């Protein structure tokens, strides 16, 4: 394997490990807290729920994208 590819793979594996820890924490904290509220919203205020659902998934996309980009940049610099 080429040295560059090996470094990228190592950085990616490290990124995955850190990301997995962050995501696990996210499951138990954020989703647990939001679960009941979203359930109530879905049964009582469908339109608000629809808007919140789109905002949540879009917000998560932007935040997680930023997290993975920063993680990958930091780890690549470290492994270089």
């Amino acid at each position: 394997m080429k040295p560059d590819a090996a470094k990228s793979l190592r950085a990616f594996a490290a990124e995955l490990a850190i990301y997995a820890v962050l995501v696990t924490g996210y499951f138990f904290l954020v989703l647990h807290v939001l679960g009941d509220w979203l359930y109530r919203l879905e049964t009582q205020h469908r339109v608000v729920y629809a808007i919140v659902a789109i905002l949540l998934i879009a917000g998560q996309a932007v935040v997680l994208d930023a997290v993975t980009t920063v993680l990958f940049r930091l780890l690549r610099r470290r492994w270089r």
Partner: protein
Amino acid sequence: MFFPISHSHINPLYLVVVGFVIGILGGFFGVGGSFIAGPALRLMGVDWNYAVGTDLAHIVGKSIVAARKHRTLGNVDLKLGLIMAVGTIGGAEGGAQLIQALKRAGNVNTVVSWVAIVVYAGISIFMLWESHTTLKLHKRRSRGLVSDKKAAASKADHSAFGPVTKKIQGIRIWPMISLPTSGIKEISLWTIILVALVGGFFSGFLGGGAGYIRMPSMVYVLGIPTHLAVGTDLFEIIISASYGTFTHAIKGNVDILIALVMHTGAVVGAQIGVVATQYFAGPKIRLAFVPLPLIGAAIVIYTLVTGHKL
């Protein structure tokens, strides 16, 4: 983990892995991946209506990540994406109306299944022929003239279907517009809207984002380079899937908690898929695309033969 909205128990790791796989496919091919996500959720006992709606919500998040990455690589034509979004939403409504009409006639499952098989198999066979012929022609032309690395890195696309595409681009129905990002000097607005309408129609009729129809249509009918078609399709999916998520959520078909968990895996997968497109030339991406609609066709044939709904 219990998901109260859809009343289902699903291992979050399973959702993350499914999201990851779909993320790679989405980032690389510009498809939503509903032909995998729907059956994967159904397999865990999620009701079909929740599987369809939740999948759309997850597609919104995954497409945002992949489209942002494609945009940094210069693979998104915003003007084209916005025009197509309008046509897609209109077409999706038309497809959904036809489904309602077939429901009333009582033969919705048979008709949709056969249309799906013909469309999926047709796309695969055509793309296999086209990409294979293009690669062969390109090999002959570039032998000794251009290095492989340079050819692979180039976003300028060649297609064996190119002469037909040129003729379509030559149709002059007012208003004519230019798409500088995609390298198209002039094309009729109606041609773009028609392509988007057809893609949207199949999205409403067969379900999902219909990227397996829209991405090839953008390449072969509009003449958009493959890398740009993938990126622009993802951008367009953000808008059309958001609309789909909203309407499904109002009808009580979206479990956003499942979508959020799936999306954590899709984020990583989508980034891998996007980066991978840089290492492949357009015809090779199109050749690798061939099995995707076939997987969709295989799932439909399975449900037809066994009567078991995945």
